[in-house]
């Protein structure tokens, strides 16, 4: 498996700040060059994340397109106080992908008529075939992996995730903290 690169390198923060500022200034001016630059800079991690959520190329392409349109249309709502540009782009990419995933779940529920919906969600979420694929997650403790799988990649609310994993809400929260620490340690 590929080893994660160092955080400072992957985020490229030092030399990308001015580029981010340039992108934002162009986007606020409704200059298409802003979106083209943003695309060159961040489309790959956005598409990677969307694909991790949806696991389907045509759907992932549509969602990337939708996410880019959202960025184009709501550039004014970007608040640097809440995080840097890549975090904002990834948040939009993930939200758009999760919305699509929820719609897919609704459609699946109408064809699987006899199945109880919550059971279905649970089975889909805990299916080892879908868990094993996120390469880096394999290195996490199983209980941390389940947490990130449900909350980050499947967009469960905290109570849905606690119910699916059959653990109290307090335990879910503590595991969240530990899961991120473990994941974060892989990049430092």
């Amino acid at each position: 498996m590929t080893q994660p690169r160092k955080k400072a390198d992957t985020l490229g923060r030092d030399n990308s700040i001015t580029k981010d500022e340039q992108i934002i200034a162009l986007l606020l001016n409704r200059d298409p060059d802003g979106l083209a630059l943003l695309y060159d800079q961040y489309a790959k991690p956005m598409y990677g994340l969307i694909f991790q959520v949806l696991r389907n190329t045509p759907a992932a392409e549509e969602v990337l397109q939708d996410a880019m349109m959202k960025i184009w249309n709501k550039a004014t709502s970007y608040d640097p106080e809440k995080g840097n540009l890549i975090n904002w782009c990834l948040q939009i990419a993930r939200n758009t992908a999760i919305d699509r995933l929820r719609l897919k779940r609704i459609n699946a529920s109408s064809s699987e008529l006899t199945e109880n919906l919550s059971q279905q969600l649970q089975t889909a979420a805990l299916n080892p075939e879908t868990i094993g694929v996120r390469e880096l997650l394999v290195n996490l403790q199983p209980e941390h992996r389940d947490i990130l799988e449900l909350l980050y990649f499947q967009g469960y609310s905290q109570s849905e995730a606690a119910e699916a994993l059959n653990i109290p809400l307090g335990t879910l929260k503590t595991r969240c903290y530990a899961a991120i620490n473990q994941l974060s340690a892989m990049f430092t």
Partner: protein
Amino acid sequence: MDINAYIESGILELYVMDALSPAEISEVEALSAMHPAIKARIRNIQDTFSAFALHDALPPRPALKEAIMHQIEQTPLPVSPAVTTAPHSTTGLSTWAVLAITAMVLALSALAYQAWINQQARASCRQQTEEVQQKLNFLLNQGTIPIALKGTESHPDALVTIFWNARQGKTLLEIKNLPALPDELQYQLWSLKDGKPKSAGLLSMANAGELQSMLNVEEADAFAITIEQKGGVESPTLNQMVVIGKV
């Protein structure tokens, strides 16, 4: 307040993963504005996810960028103030003053117009989100059951799904497969209780891909759809039944 305990509680991770209630989100944002340590931890979690995404970065098809750039060129730009010629001064004001006032009035109207457009767009967007949320809540409600209405002998491929909540009486309908009808005819949904039919509304073929809200149904042991005259009828034409399904 014990900031470290708050940071270690796991709530900030849930915040970044968007898994909190609106009230909890406001709480985290208020505390983050007050305590740099909380803000720093949020950044740290976001950066961890960003590093994760960069590690799994995947190049999309090159044609996609072109498609997106083409799409934004089709999006209308915000209204910009129109250039007009100021009339000659006849009121004692200088030409410059008239120009300045005209420009200001134009700029203000453009701003007001833009604000109005934004407000309309937001209201419409909010309404759509609320509708989707309501439907989602309804589908996830434990009392809501899906019922497959399968094709009769004359229409073996027809298929419709009903989502019915007996306690609320609410009924949503999704057309999976129904043949198109001539203009003068329309599909009508019926609820059946002890063999007695009651109309549950007319189907819209224009919204075939969406979940349609039907009339409330208090009690039913089956649902069926018939082909009727446009506008519907009081009692079903049984030999025109297309699909039926038991609760």
